[in-house]
C-alpha cells in the first residue's frame, strides 16, 4: 500500500477513526457488546440507550468525585451517529416513531481488530493448510471441463476412501484426531463463524452501495429514452446479478435448506459435547444467529430492490424529475416575489379525508338535573353473609371494662387488678389485661407499681395461663 493511501484511510475510514476517537474504549465496549457480541440488528434508541447508561454508571461510580463521562448516553450516541463520526446508522423505519440505530461494518472491523489483539494460546496452522488445500481442490475440480479428468479425480478419491476403510478395519483408532488437532479445528471454526456473522453488515452495506451507485447513474443520466431504458434495465438487475448478490443468495439457500439446517444442528451439538474443545456456549446456536443475520440482510436486499424498482420505473422517475424541475421554478419565482406583496392564492387540493358531520350528530343541549345526595340506602334483599368472621374477632371493649370497674369500686376507692379479674374472669386473655392497662377514662386512674409483682391466672383458648406482671391498681377519682 502507498503512503498516501494509508494516510487517507487513517483520516477517512470510519473504523480507523473509531479507534482514534477520544471515547474509543467506551464506544467499543458499549456498541461492541450490544451489536457484535449480542448479535443485534437495528434497534430503537430506547433499547440502545440502556446499554451505555449502565456502562457509564459503572465507570463513573469507580471515582464518583470526578466522573470520567459527564454527558448522557443519548448524547454520546447522537455524537457517534453524527455525520462527522458515522460510526452508527441512524434512521426512522417505516411505521416507527423512534430513532433506530444500527452498527456499521466499520464497527465490526474495529471491534474484531481489538479483539484480535488479545493473544491466542496457540495458532493452528495444520488445519488451515488443510482448508487451503481443500479450497484449491474445489477450484481445480469445479473448473475442469474435461469429463475424463474429472472421472479420474473421482476415482482417486474413491481409492483414498477405500484405503481409509481398510485402515479402520485393521486399527479401530485410525483416523481419530488428537487433542491439538481438535482444538485447532475448533479455533478455526469459531473464528470463521464469528467472522461470518460480522460480514453480514458488510454485505448489507455493499448492497446499499450498489443501490446508491445505481441511483446516481440514473439520476445523472442525460440521454435519449432508449439509452435511459437500457440503463434502467441494467440497474434493476445489478443487485441480484452482482458477485455480492449471487454469493449471498447461494449462502442463504444453503443455510436455509432443511438438510443443511439439520446437519448443522447435529454437528454443533456434537461439537459442544466434546469436552476438550471447551466450546463457547454461544457457538452452539451460531447457525440461528447466522440465519437471523442473513434474514435481516435478505430483508434489506428485498426492500432495496423493491425501492430501486420503483425508482427506476420510468413513469415514477420522469415524474420525480419533472417535480424537481417544477419545484426549482417555483422556488425561483418565490424568491423573486419575496420582497413584494405575496400572492393571495395557493395550491388547490382535495382534502385527504371526508369530514362527515351531520347536524343531528351533535346532540342538543340537555339540562342535567342537579345532583342530589341520597344517603338513605334502599333496603337490600336479604343476603347470606358469613357473620362468624366478625364474631371471631377478639375485641376488648374498654367501655365495658370501665363500667365493671365503676360498678365495683366506689368513688375515690382503689382496687387491685387481680381482684377485679377474680370477680370478672378474663374472657379474652392477655388482650383483656392490656385493655385494663390502657384504660383512658377521665374518672379512672391506672397505676403500675413496678417494684411489686403479682400473678394473674386465667384461661385462654382452653388452656390454663399465668401472667406475671407488676402490681396494678385502679383508682376511681
Amino acid at each position, binding site marked *: 500500500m502507498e503512503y498516501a493511501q494509508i494516510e487517507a484511510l487513517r483520516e477517512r475510514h470510519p473504523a480507523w477513526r473509531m479507534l482514534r476517537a477520544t471515547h474509543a474504549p467506551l464506544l467499543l465496549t458499549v456498541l461492541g457488546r450490544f451489536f457484535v457480541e449480542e448479535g443485534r440488528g437495528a434497534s430503537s434508541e430506547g433499547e440502545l440507550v440502556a446499554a451505555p447508561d449502565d456502562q457509564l454508571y459503572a465507570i463513573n461510580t469507580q471515582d464518583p468525585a470526578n466522573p470520567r463521562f459527564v454527558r448522557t448516553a443519548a448524547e454520546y450516541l447522537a455524537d457517534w451517529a453524527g455525520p462527522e463520526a458515522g460510526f452508527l446508522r441512524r*434512521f*426512522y*423505519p*417505516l*411505521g*416507527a*416513531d*423512534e430513532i*433506530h440505530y444500527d452498527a456499521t461494518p466499520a464497527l465490526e472491523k474495529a471491534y474484531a481488530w481489538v479483539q484480535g489483539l488479545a493473544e491466542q494460546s496457540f495458532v493452528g496452522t495444520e488445519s488451515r493448510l488443510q482448508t487451503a488445500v481443500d479450497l484449491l481442490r474445489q477450484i481445480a475440480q469445479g473448473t475442469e471441463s474435461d469429463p475424463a479428468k474429472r472421472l479420474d479425480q473421482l476415482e482417486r478419491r474413491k481409492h483414498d476412501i477405500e484405503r481409509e476403510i481398510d485402515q479402520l478395519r485393521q486399527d479401530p483408532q485410525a483416523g481419530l484426531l488428537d487433542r491439538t488437532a481438535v482444538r485447532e479445528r475448533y479455533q478455526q471454526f469459531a473464528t470463521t463463524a464469528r467472522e461470518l456473522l460480522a460480514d453480514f453488515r458488510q454485505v448489507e452495506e455493499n448492497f*446499499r452501495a450498489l*443501490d*446508491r451507485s445505481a*441511483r446516481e447513474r440514473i*439520476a445523472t443520466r442525460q440521454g435519449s429514452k432508449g439509452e435511459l431504458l437500457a440503463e434502467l434495465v441494467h440497474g434493476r438487475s445489478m443487485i441480484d446479478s452482482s458477485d455480492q448478490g449471487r454469493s449471498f443468495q447461494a449462502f442463504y439457500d444453503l443455510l436455509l435448506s432443511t438438510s443443511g439446517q439439520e446437519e448443522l444442528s447435529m454437528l454443533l451439538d456434537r461439537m459442544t459435547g466434546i469436552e476438550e474443545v471447551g466450546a463457547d456456549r454461544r457457538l452452539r446456536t451460531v447457525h440461528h444467529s447466522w440465519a437471523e443475520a442473513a434474514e435481516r440482510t435478505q430483508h*434489506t436486499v428485498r*426492500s*432495496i430492490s423493491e*425501492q*430501486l424498482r*420503483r*425508482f427506476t*420505473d420510468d413513469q*415514477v422517475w420522469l*415524474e*420525480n424529475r*419533472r*417535480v*424537481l424541475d*417544477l*419545484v426549482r*421554478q*417555483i*422556488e425561483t*419565482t*418565490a*424568491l*423573486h*416575489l*419575496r*420582497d*413584494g*406583496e*405575496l*400572492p*393571495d*392564492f*395557493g*395550491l*388547490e*387540493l*382535495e*382534502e*385527504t*379525508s*371526508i*369530514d*362527515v358531520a351531520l347536524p343531528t350528530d351533535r346532540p342538543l343541549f340537555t339540562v342535567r338535573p342537579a345532583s342530589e345526595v341520597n344517603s338513605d340506602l334502599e333496603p337490600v334483599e336479604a343476603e347470606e353473609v358469613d357473620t362468624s368472621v366478625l364474631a371471631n374477632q377478639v375485641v376488648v371493649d374498654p367501655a365495658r371494662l370501665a363500667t365493671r370497674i365503676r360498678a365495683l369500686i366506689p368513688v375515690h376507692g382503689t382496687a387491685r387488678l387481680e381482684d377485679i379479674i377474680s370477680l370478672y374472669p378474663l374472657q379474652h386473655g392477655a388482650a383483656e389485661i392490656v385493655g385494663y392497662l390502657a384504660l383512658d377514662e377521665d374518672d379512672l386512674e391506672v397505676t403500675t407499681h413496678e417494684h411489686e409483682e403479682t400473678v394473674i391466672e386465667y384461661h385462654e383458648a382452653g388452656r390454663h395461663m399465668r401472667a406475671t406482671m407488676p402490681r396494678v391498681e385502679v383508682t376511681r377519682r
Partner: protein
Amino acid sequence: MTASGSSTSDRAVGDRVTAGRVTPERAVAVSAIRLMQGVVYQESDAWDDLVRHQGAVRDHFAVVGLEVVVDDDEGYAYLRTADTPEGENALPRVIRRRTLTYADSLLLVLLRKRLAEFESAGDPGQLVLTHDEIVEMIRLFLHRSTDEAREQHQIDASINRLVGMGFLRQLKDRKGEWEVRRILKAYVDAETLSDFSAKLAEYADAGSADESTADEGVGHAGAADESTADRPSEDI
C-alpha cells in the same frame, strides 16, 4: 360436515369478530370507514383488509362519485373525486377542495422536494424533519422580517394546518419532529405543481409590470399572507 353447515355457522357469527377472524362484510365496512377518515397506509392494520376487499370498497364509493386509489408500490390508498363521464352532470362534491394560503403551499412544495430528494438518496424508512429544519427551509422564501416571533408563529400555524390535512405527522413522544407523509406525492404531483408554477409566474409578471407603472403596490409586506388562511373553496 356439509357445505350448508358451514354457511349457517358463518351466518351465526354475523357481524362479530371471532377468534381474530373478521367477516367480509365487516372488513369492507371498516375499510370504507378508514378511507373516509384519511389515507390508509401499508403499515396500518387496515391495509390488508382493504386490499383484499378492494372491489367491494370501490363499488361502495362509486355510488357517490368517489374513486378509491390503491397504490401498491407506494403503499397507500386514498379517496378522490372520480372524473365525470362525458355528457353527464357532475355530482355534488363529497370531498371538499381547499385552497391553501401561499405560505402553506410553499411549505408543501418544499416538502415535496425534500421527499423526492430523500427517495433519490435511497434512504430507508421515513423522512423525518425537525422543527428547525422546516423553519430553515421555508424562511428563505418568506418576507425578511425583524419580527421573528411572528414569523415563527406563522410557520407553526402552517405546520399545524398541514398536520390537519394529513401531510405531516407529529411523531409520538418526540416534540418538534414531523414525519413527511408519502401521500404528499399523490396530491402534490407534477400537474398540480405545474399549474401552481404557471400561476405564480403570471403573478410575478403582472407584479413587475405594476412596478414599472406605479411603485406603491410594493411595500405592504405581510398584509396578505395570513388574511386568507385556509378557506374551503367549495361546500359539500
